[in-house]
């Protein structure tokens, strides 16, 4: 597995924050990494080429934001471009007509039948009355599979005797929908290859005979470079309105979806996140962008750090740092802010120069260190928080008892805080102090 792009760029571009502008050299180095990361994520190579070109143009000479490194600045641009591509088209789930028809199409094994069942469940939750139609007469036991799923969800399933043509199955399904007063018909079709002309014609005929309000292409998140051609071929045969990206609960980055959206302009509408029928999620471009870059939620955190970054508080904090009046109380405040933003390790990733510490930090979170620190500070009086120097042995014992920690935990915190104050004193006047206001170190 490759490192997350943020980590790779940190290695390539260094950890220095806010050093003026992203240089041409930075950009060259970054583009190689971005290209490989996107290819690793199965983004189509032509899409990668265009994409890298666009990022290069945008990144060259751009001014680096105060709180970011050059690498993070580039990541930010990459992310914005990814989100823009993934935001293609209209993601609304449209249900027009009575009954509204949803047609599911795709390659073999992409997850159509499971997705059909999930959609039916989703529709029931929306207050609709769906019916599932087993329009795959080819794969052995495909109709049985849909029937089993439908029964578990209490959604009726229409199936026709072996030998019924797909058009006739659909016709029967529509009749069944009327009889059972169903307002949405979900057509689960057989998987097919785009080079299989008779079967592509079959699906085109079906789509022509019954105008679907949604024609969803079901795409496996693990799909490689062919995704674009597959989507284009299906889109040429039937008017696809969007994608369901399945099996996203694995560790595939899902670049296929990006490629398809970039080339066809089709939006991803749903994500399949598991084998159970409730594992269907509405698609969010920003989350998939982060995933494609292999950065978990770090990108969201970059955004959020910028949002949560309260100017006034930052100025106040900078002032405190300069005057060396940063107290345990301030530390508690900072911790709360950090918590608002999300997991500790990822936050540290954002702190210039601390990317490498992220793992350690996460471990300390896992061990409950932070909770302990918080409990200790909360057991102190305001006076003690402002000036830890007054913490004599008796006070420390009381605090340990009050916070349910051990005396040595309290001692350690006091000692560490002393060290932190000293470090800050050295840094104040320098740049780092001003750049860290929203985040405690």
């Amino acid at each position, binding site marked *: 597995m490759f490192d997350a792009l943020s980590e790779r760029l940190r290695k390539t571009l260094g950890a220095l924050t806010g050093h003026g502008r992203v240089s041409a050299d930075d950009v060259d180095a970054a583009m190689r990494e971005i290209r490989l990361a996107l290819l690793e994520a199965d983004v189509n190579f032509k899409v990668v080429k265009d994409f890298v070109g666009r990022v290069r143009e945008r990144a060259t000479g751009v001014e680096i934001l105060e709180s970011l490194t050059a690498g993070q600045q580039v990541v930010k641009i990459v992310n914005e471009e990814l989100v823009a591509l993934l935001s293609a088209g209209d993601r609304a789930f449209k249900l027009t007509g009575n009954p509204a028809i949803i047609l599911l199409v795709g390659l073999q094994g992409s997850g159509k039948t499971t997705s059909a069942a999930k959609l039916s469940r989703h529709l029931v939750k929306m207050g609709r009355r769906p019916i599932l139609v087993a329009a795959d007469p080819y794969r052995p036991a495909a109709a049985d599979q849909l029937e089993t799923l439908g029964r578990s969800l209490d959604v009726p399933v229409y199936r026709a005797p072996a*030998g019924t043509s797909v058009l006739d199955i659909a016709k029967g399904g529509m009749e069944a929908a009327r009889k059972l007063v169903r307002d949405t018909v979900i057509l689960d079709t057989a998987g097919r290859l785009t080079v299989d002309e008779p079967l592509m014609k079959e699906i085109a005929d079906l789509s022509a005979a019954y105008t679907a309000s949604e024609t969803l292409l079901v795409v496996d998140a693990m799909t490689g*470079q062919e995704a674009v051609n597959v989507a284009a071929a299906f889109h040429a045969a039937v008017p696809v309105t969007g994608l369901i990206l399945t099996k996203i609960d694995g*560790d595939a980055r899902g670049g296929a979806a990006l490629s398809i959206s970039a080339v066809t302009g089709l939006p991803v509408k749903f994500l399949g996140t598991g084998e159970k029928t409730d594992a269907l999620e509405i698609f969010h471009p920003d989350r998939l962008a982060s995933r494609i870059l292999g950065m978990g939620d770090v990108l969201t955190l970059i955004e959020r750090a910028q949002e949560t970054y309260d100017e006034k508080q930052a100025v106040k904090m900078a002032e405190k740092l300069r005057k060396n009046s940063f107290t345990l109380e301030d530390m508690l405040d900072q911790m709360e802010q950090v918590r608002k933003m999300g997991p500790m390790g990822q936050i540290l990733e954002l702190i210039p120069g601390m990317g490498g510490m992220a793992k350690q930090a996460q471990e300390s979170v896992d061990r409950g260190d932070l909770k302990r620190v918080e409990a200790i500070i909360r057991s102190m009086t305001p006076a003690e928080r402002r000036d830890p120097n007054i913490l004599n042995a008796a006070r420390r014992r009381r605090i340990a008892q009050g916070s349910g920690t051990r005396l040595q935990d309290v001692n350690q915190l006091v000692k560490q805080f002393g060290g932190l104050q000293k470090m800050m004193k050295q840094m104040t006047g320098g740049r780092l102090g001003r750049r860290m206001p929203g985040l405690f170190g």
Partner: protein
Amino acid sequence: MSTEPTEVVEAGKHAGEPGATKEVEPLWHSEADELLVPPAAPVRSSESEDFTPGDLSAGLERSRGGFMSRLRGILRSGPSDADWESVEELLISGDVGGVLAIEIVEGARARKDAPSAEAAVRAELAGRLLPGEHGWRPRPAAPGQPAVVLMVGVNGTGKTTTIGKLAHVYRAEGRSVLLAAADTFRAAAIDQLRIWSDRTGCQFVAHAPGADPAAVIYDALDAAIARNVDVVIADTAGRLHTKSNLMDELAKMRRVIERRLPGSAPEVLFVLDATTGQNGLSQAKVFHETIGLTGIVLTKLDSTAKGGIVFAIEDALHIPVRLVGVGEKLGDLLPFDPDAFIDALFE
């Protein structure tokens, strides 16, 4: 393990098709007009001609042909930097992967011995594949014991269909085959396998949906030993390699085989969809760590995909591709031929 099989079917009896055991020809064929009135065993619309390895590249010839033949021309006439870049892109477009494509091109450019640039690229590619084994058959640990094949992979790659095709091959050779329905999870997975079992005249062991898959395997082995069956093929539920509980379940199945047939070395075939991108490597690694893969089946090579991730997998894990799937019919399974595979990448 004491659970009785809920269903054990003797060859031919279930399907009401006594001739099934002797059937060697594909059990059905399809003309376009039959599509509208398929028999109980439905038909696929594609042509039903038999593939031979030599046909593989022909079957894969696609619209990229123009670009490829130009590229081949370039490779013969001494490529420029830009041409090498096209080669890199060709490899990447076949899912070879960015890093490996760069490595292969660098390796090819450094080769001084090759008669042409194309030969150099081919040599680099071939060097990353294990040789094909046309005569490959699963072997029993001891004479009189059944050979055991376990089919594993992520969801929807073609495990169950491949079992049908593989069973067809063995049946055609006159071996007795027992299919074990150890996918007890996916809806109708047991029914799906039963249909293949009927079509190929296999014996069949299944429990109720939701049963312990390891228990199914145990019972299948018992039945196979008692009845002197030559080959047991077990279907397993598709599972993402990231789900550790499901991977543990696989490890357990293997342990059961080893307990019931001490000293046996079951064939564990990893079924990989040729459309899979770079994630295929991470799949193969985890499956290999969990259960010890002995071979790969690359399915859906009748699609437009090239299956280039196989280079990275073989390079990293040294597990041979044994078979390729080129369709949905019984006869659509071929031995892996590295040269034809590389050809197809270029066509």
